[in-house]
């Protein structure tokens, strides 16, 4: 029983094998990709392993505190930011092997030419609660 985050990057991950940008896919290829992702999440819910899935807008703003009574300072978006998160899925699985297996399955989503994208996903374990038994 461990939770993992599967992170999908717009930028910052190594290049996918089938590395054609989505805006150059056909409409059917995009539909097939979206359907694959949705079916994947549905299947994980049925296996009792799904926790959450979200997509993020590509443009964000940096914000920081600027002292008492002053409005927050904002900056960006920065076009040159190296790492850009596209979205994530959170899974709750029995082993790291299972987490790797599911990440690989998600990475096989079809892209250009209907072939798998082979996209690199980043797998990050959640920090757990401390165990009750301490010695």
């Amino acid at each position: 029983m461990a939770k993992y985050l599967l992170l999908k990057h717009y930028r910052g991950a190594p290049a996918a094998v089938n590395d054609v940008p989505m805006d150059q896919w056909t409409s059917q290829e995009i539909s097939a990709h979206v359907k694959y992702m949705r079916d994947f999440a549905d299947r994980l819910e049925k296996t009792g392993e799904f926790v959450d899935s979200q997509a993020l807008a590509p443009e964000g703003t940096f914000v920081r505190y600027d002292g008492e009574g002053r409005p927050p300072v904002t900056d960006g978006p920065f076009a040159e930011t190296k790492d850009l998160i596209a979205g994530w899925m959170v899974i709750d699985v029995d082993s790291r092997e299972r987490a790797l297996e599911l990440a690989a399955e998600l990475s096989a989503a079809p892209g250009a030419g209907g072939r798998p994208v082979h996209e690199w996903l980043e797998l990050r374990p959640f920090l757990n609660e401390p165990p009750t038994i301490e010695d």
Partner: protein
Amino acid sequence: MDEALLRALTPSVLTILVRRGADFAAAEDAVQDALVEALRVWPTDPPRDAKGWLVTVAWRRFLDAARSESARRRREEILQEEPVPGPASAVDDTLRLYFLCAHPSLSPSSAVALTLRAVGGLTTRQIAHAYLVPEATMAQRISRAKRTVAGVRLDRPGDAATVLRVLYLIFNEGYSGEVDLAAEAIRLTRRVHAALDHPESAGLLALMLLHQARRCARTTPEGALVPLAEQDRRRWDTGVIAEGVGILQAALARDRLGEYQAQAAIAALHADAPRAEETDWAQIVEWYDELVRLNRSPVIRLNRAVAVGEADGPGAGLAALAELEESLPRHSAVAGHLHERAGDLDMAARLYAEAAHKATDLAEREHLTRQAARLDQCRGR
């Protein structure tokens, strides 16, 4: 509204439905529906006979669910195929439910979820909250678990070790939500211990009680972890310790040692020391030696190295540690502690920082970061 009573009645209500001929999966769903209904209705309209109420409502739900033609046919077949079992004690029947819910064909997380629902009497929502997953996911995990054990007969004895393992997991791993999982695990282990004549069920119950007794002293009000050596031992629950020690002694007297008894013996030796400095580390090392004989798990040998460091000095502890892979979880945390005791503060601070980076839980990471910071400060950085 007595939720504890409701939970305690769950397995016997489920057993009654199964004895009337309902299959386990459908009966379990019906009992869950009755539980949810009880939680809704009882606060304003408490029943005179709680168990009778639950059986009536659950049985009605079962019949409603089985009403479709195909389901009815299936039910009649079951009723014909399997004669109603002869008189068996309620305790034995409940025990069989534990065996089924911990069946070896189930993954650990499925066995935990099914146990908490079918014999623990928790609702799907409560279990989902406790493990921080959506309710729909938890519902599917439980349905899937029930499909996995659909072909398992309830009248065959199961393996005690798998049941104890599931209860250990419930006790040791969970989040602090609205349901206290550690307390639930103790309640269920008490029932198993009462029904199952096995020294390891006593060992596990003692182990749980001895750790539960320290729980108040284990965290600060802000939630930071307090290591064993620094806990305020006046806050340990002496009544619970006495109960745990009593159960453990009776188990050890039967001379069938197992891992839970050995772990409980170590916890009992800690509980026995009024101050950390008075801990009988030599005896703790002996128990670790027993434990290593039972299970050569590197995690146990890592904990043994800590005990050796306390009993025979940090040099001996480091020598024991040297036999283990550096990639083990908590290896650098243990190495940091032993180097600090040996007086090598630079090395210790570096190891604590490395250990914090590798920690797998947040409280442990905070604790190790503080250790590194403390050493950096005393060296005037």
